């Protein structure tokens, strides 16, 4: 399949991902230039979603590597299945097998636990590799990742070098919990995804929650947007907006008034402080979003 800008644009539409020129171009370039795409932006703005949509668009598998503190090569790349090897050794002992045969056996692919990176490299066809929240991983891991992303090949001492048949499409996401290294930034295309504007969010709501009356959808989009302006611990994400509007539909809300918002605000704001802060200004915000 040939990658064209039109293909990307149509694919995003098909995957029901509402977006703008910037996101489209960045995705298109990542596919066309086969470069990793580093996506930054606030939590809940739809960074991870890009990778999922890409997988749907290319009709392929999504391999996800969730980063966390202390993530190491063994968890990201591969690990020998230690338990299985031990059992094999025991069984071999009973059958009187010699060490040469045994060692050849226990260091074969059957005893290799494939972690996400290796899985993406060994996949028979092009997959989408999502390296989620890379900022949570340690700097050492980042350095290791650089090497892996450059070559897409892995040397396992016992097996030799394993090379990717098809370069995976790589998407990295970061919440900027720490600054990523310059080297990593240099090698990636960069995309910043912010929360959508009101108009865009209204479209998202209408697309994903079609049962909500149009007028309420517009008001909801404006209200959520206004809430994000408050100095909150955690601004409501797009997913939370959608949950909230779904809740409004389930409750049969016909009018977005203070009572309706107050009874459902827990879906949007998950911190007590945030709720208190928002509730004080609720009447003004609702009045303004009309």
């Amino acid at each position: 399949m040939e990658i064209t800008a039109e293909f990307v644009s149509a694919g995003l539409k098909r995957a029901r991902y509402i977006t703008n020129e910037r996101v489209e171009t960045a995705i298109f370039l990542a596919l066309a230039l086969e470069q990793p795409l580093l996506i930054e932006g606030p939590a809940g703005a739809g960074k991870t979603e890009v990778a999922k949509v890409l997988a749907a668009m290319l009709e392929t598998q999504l391999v996800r590597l969730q980063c966390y503190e202390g993530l190491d090569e063994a968890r990201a790349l591969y690990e020998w299945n230690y338990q299985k090897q031990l059992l094999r050794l025991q069984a071999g002992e009973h059958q009187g097998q010699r060490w040469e045969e045994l060692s050849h056996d226990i260091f074969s692919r059957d005893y290799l636990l494939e972690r996400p990176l290796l899985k993406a490299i060994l996949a028979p066809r092009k997959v989408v590799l999502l390296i989620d929240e890379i900022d949570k991983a340690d700097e050492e891991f980042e350095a290791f990742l650089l090497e892996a992303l450059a070559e897409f090949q892995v040397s396992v001492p016992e097996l030799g070098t394993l090379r990717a048949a098809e370069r995976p499409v790589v998407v990295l996401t970061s919440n900027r919990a720490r600054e990523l290294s310059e080297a990593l930034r240099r090698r990636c295309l960069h995309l910043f995804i912010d929360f959508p504007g009101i108009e865009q969010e209204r479209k998202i709501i209408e697309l994903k929650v079609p049962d909500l009356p149009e007028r309420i959808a517009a008001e909801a989009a404006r209200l959520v947007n206004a809430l994000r302006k408050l100095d909150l611990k955690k601004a409501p994400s797009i997913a939370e907006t959608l949950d909230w509007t779904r809740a409004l539909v389930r409750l049969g809300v016909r009018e977005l008034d203070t009572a309706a918002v107050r009874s459902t605000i827990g879906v949007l704001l998950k911190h007590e402080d945030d709720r208190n802060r928002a509730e004080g200004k609720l009447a003004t915000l609702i009045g303004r979003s009309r």
Partner: protein
Amino acid sequence: MTRPLSDLIIEFVAGLRAAGVRISVAESLDAMRAIGVAGLALPRMREALRAALIKDEADSPIFDTLFASYFRGPPHDSDPNPKSRGMRAGVIGGQGGSSAAAPERPASKSAAEKGVQTDPTEQDEPEERSTAPGRASDSGDPGDSSENPVEAGSPEGATAVAGRGFSPEHHDDRDHHGPDAALANLRRIESVPFASYSPLEYDLARDALAILRRRWQTRLGRRLRRARRGRLDFRRTIRASLQHGGLPLERHFRARRPRHLDLVVLADISGSVHYASLLILELLAGAAREFRRMRGFVFIDRLAAADFERGHLVMTPHLDMYARSDFGRVFGEIASAHPDILNRATVMVILGVGRNNKRPPRTDILQTIASRCRAVVWLNPEPPERWGTGDSAIESYRRVVDFLLPCGSLRELQASLVNII
């Protein structure tokens, strides 16, 4: 105009570099390749260049401004309405004023204070996002408007700009740049020495502090939590292996003993280092949850307990702000009045220039304190070349503290804090 496009792009990259954006040679090559596949339709070319060249959202406004000045020529841009851009900019420029009037928004306030310098760059962005439809008219590619789902809604978007002017959408979208504005703000303020701060700069720095606080919190948290899984616990592993007929299938590790740290901050708030101390106190207070206990003290010639309430320093008792710093006396006070908080888990951070106004420095008391604490860190806002000159007693203090680090500006402070942890 017959210059090759590559020349123009090289110039453009040079322009970005000159404006302080770091771009490597590899990245400029990436930019060429990106344009090669993305084509020359203006909005797409702009986004392609952005994806390849701009790796930090804080640089995005610079990119937009420069892009507009480099690539506006008619050869690739069939903009039928060249004035539309300026007109819209005017509308949004007006809102800059209106958002400055809203007091509860620090990001927009700071943007307004930066004034002329940032406005033209920032207005480009929101305009583009909220009225991405409006852009369709800029593009030379007619296919765009029908294919892009956002742009499909262009008519309403356009009326929103033209008709309502101060519409809430625009007001709001502009504020979307809060974090970026704060980042750009941080860049500008971080190398300004504390000593030359005016109240205005102090406000800017406080806005930027939110970012620093987050970074510092994360770093510190990581440092304190690192290596939860320690060495192999041989005995537990063997014991667990009994269940599997002696095969050590489950490995157990000895957990590290949790470290509890108490932080004691001692900040000089006399005139010369006032701003530095307030900022640093606030920064450290942000990381309070990483410590078991945190106590803050401020002093000039006496000691007072310090607390932050809603961003304002509260001290008890109130200090005489016109007094002169007396480190020796303050060390005596803390050692005699609060012996309980100085123990093996205590990390003491002292902020001050160590200029004792010729009073006894009482290095001996500081030495006793240091011997009781886990560590004593001295952050000195004075430039290192002035340490030890005049009435400075810092050289004698240097001998008894564990770390003496410069923190003349936000940047130095960051570097020093990283050094400590």
